[in-house]
């Protein structure tokens, strides 16, 4: 071998390196190998489809009551019929139809509250992480204040003041649960901000919004998505809890939390009445969490070998 051939060996490895998969290709491979992400995504997509096409799927009007036909058992019970596969509730409304419509409310509240809190939390977190110094001190103080306020208690108090409705619940939750966005994105931004590519962009004359949108946000987006899923799940659980305590969304809206709450009078005698909406709630939150975990796994920062 000559020196020349040794040098070719070197450039040969360089050529080989260029053929490495792109980050996106890597991610697709990882998604294909990640079963819990697939399960979560499938359940969630199914729920979303259920919510979108609820009006075509329901066997009955979810609000149509029939007091003479109340508390019918589901098909596996003694008085069950195929007319009401999951039976009827205490006002004689079809349980399955209410369950299906309930997915709309859960998803709507989860998504909207997450959106509100996401906007607040992201702005605060990114600002704190990017600017540091006094901005960080002030925002950290705001976060500390927020964390020291007990969420459920404050939500209950506010809802009891303003009066409970779908919109109120969404806004109250959105205004309360931004803390994790802020905390996580603050540290993620801090980390990215200290990366040399941000310094490089700064040196290359990139303006501050350009750095935020081109360098910071794309690189913290995986954190953002993960927190978003967590908070969406959190918001759904909180709404259910508020509705359970009677201070969430209002009847006759078929919120799953409200359904559990209304079914409590029968929980010792007709346990399926709390089981069915509880399991639906559980599955939805589970799906969102699995999706979030999966996203975290498949988007672990590329670039390091």
């Amino acid at each position, binding site marked *: 071998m000559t020196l020349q051939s040794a040098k070719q060996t070197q450039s040969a490895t360089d050529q080989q390196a260029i053929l490495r998969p792109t*980050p996106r290709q890597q991610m697709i491979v990882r998604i294909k190998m990640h079963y819990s992400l697939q399960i979560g995504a499938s359940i969630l997509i199914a729920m979303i489809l259920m919510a979108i096409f609820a009006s075509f799927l329901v066997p009955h009007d979810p609000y149509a009551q029939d007091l003479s036909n109340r508390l019918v058992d589901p098909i596996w019970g003694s008085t069950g019929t195929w007319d009401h596969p999951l039976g009827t509730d205490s006002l004689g409304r079809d349980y399955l139809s209410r369950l299906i419509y309930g997915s709309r409310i859960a998803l709507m509240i989860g998504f909207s509250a997450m959106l509100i809190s996401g906007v607040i939390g992201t702005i605060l977190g990114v600002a704190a992480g990017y600017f540091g110094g006094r901005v960080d001190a002030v925002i950290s103080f705001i976060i500390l204040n927020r964390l020291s306020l007990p969420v459920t208690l404050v939500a209950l108090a506010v809802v009891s003041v303003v009066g409970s409705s779908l919109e109120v619940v969404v806004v109250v939750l959105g205004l309360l649960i931004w803390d994790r966005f802020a905390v996580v994105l603050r540290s993620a931004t801090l980390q990215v901000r200290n990366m040399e590519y941000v310094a490089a962009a700064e040196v290359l004359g990139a303006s501050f919004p350009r750095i935020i949108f081109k360098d910071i946000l794309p690189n913290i987006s995986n954190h953002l998505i993960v927190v978003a899923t967590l908070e969406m799940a959190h918001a759904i659980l909180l709404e259910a809890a508020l509705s359970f305590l009677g201070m969430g969304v209002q009847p006759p809206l078929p919120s799953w939390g409200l359904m559990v709450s209304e079914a409590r009078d029968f929980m010792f005698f007709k346990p399926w009445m709390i089981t069915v909406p509880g399991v639906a709630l559980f599955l939805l939150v589970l799906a969102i969490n699995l999706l979030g975990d999966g996203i975290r796994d498949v988007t672990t920062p590329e670039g390091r070998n």
Partner: protein
Amino acid sequence: MTDVAETILSIEGLSIALPVGGDRSFAVEDIDIKINSGEILCIVGESGSGKSVTSFATMGLLPKILNPSAGRIMFEGRDLLTLPEKARKELRGDRMAMIFQEPMSALNPCYTVGNQIEEVFKKHRRMSASQRRSQLLRLLEEVKLPDPERIRSAYPHQLSGGQRQRIMIAMALALDPKLLIADEPTTALDVTTQAQILNLIKQLKSAHSAGIMFVTHDFGVVAEIADRVVVMQHGRIVEQGSADEILNRPQHPYTKVLIAAVPRKSGQAGRSIEDNPVALLANNVTKTFHTPGNLFTKGRTVHAVKEASFTVRRGETLGIVGESGSGKTTLVRCLIRLIDPDSGEIEINGIDFAGLNRDTLREHRKDIQIVFQDPYGSLNPRRTVGDLIIEGPVNFGVPRAEALQRARELLKIVRLDPDCMDRYPAQFSGGQRQRICIARALAVEPKVLIADEAVSALDVSVQKEVLALINEIRDSFGLTVLFITHDLRVAAQICDNIIVMKDGEIVERGDVNKVFGAPEHDYTKSLLDAEPGKDWVIPEFEDNTSV
């Protein structure tokens, strides 16, 4: 060295398989190594050559995914590879010991160093507490740690890197092992500390009869301490022999490439730049950092840069050298206003750069650009190469199409395929990324280019190419280069003038021949003196300039 060398360790035909889907099928393949008592065997090679895997396989510390698939490792008459784990545990720390690369992280932060050394006694010997204690103090003395009583009860983070590496050595020597494995033990240390540790290891070789397997990538270190040398590439041994043979009369082309790539001091002397106009002027630049305390400790104030003043002329390469913590990185970050200096003036092409406010600063940013040390962290992984390179021109108002055209040219200049514009940084090797960084910096046609340890993370052969590229670009673009490095040989090879920094102060300046040839300041002297392998005259090969 005794005349009758006893073979302590003999690696015979060892192959270690890599998991399926890797770059190659074996981490190391069919290697044979012998280590005799009382000798230092250096295993040298670039990253990925399999040198560390060999040392870990010997120690029995391979990660679970790596499995020896063939061969034997004979130690004290037994094949380590077939030995049950329990028996290997008995050997580790007792008959064989290891020193690692990162003294910062190799010690448990939660326990005192004394505690961590005594563990070795507890595990392998029945000793009373007082015996352990006196042994401990003896060891700390042997590795020349001052005030052993105090050091004993110190936590790792209270010690310096060098002290920690001494603790690691004391721990390794605790039971007088037959085999000592050192995996790049000085790479993370400053040059003066490195010299002390190498010195210590040399002394230990004579005091103990142990055989030492010393893994390194640095031919200077090899020249300093090796008795015999093994050169590895891509998991295979390409050449082995005595230190003298390998260093001065290498046979294998790869060894020659490596040695040829070792930077030497005879680089740039004699270029005339004295008459060129001043491109950059720094006057009394000062920067102080305050670290806040916590519940238990006080805050601290660090004077990172103290009144630094110097000038650089157009076309000049100014080297700024110093050990870690000397303030050189803070200084350049002040120069490009990534950090605002507390006081002082900075003039670039006659513009008062330090005095610019945020808005006007942006307009003048294009005059001074920087290439960072970490080729991984300095490229946004979410943007394509093309996007990254046109970032600067677009920011300064160049139309996108024009910027893209220019980016293709720049890629050619840094010897990358212009068709890789749509690829992401993750798809490139370290050296390639550093070229991308250079292309990006050049895209805005700067007057001054700062290379902040730009080659220190690269293997020597790649380092050499990048250094050559920087010189070439400096000449063809008429750039002024500030070259920041801790490696004196690199500085000597590429720079016209040198500034030596220590504790935030410039202690010496002058042209490269003067600073390295006739240093005035004691610190510069000690730096030069500490340079490993300084007595080795690097052989020249005919066609090395073409590399």
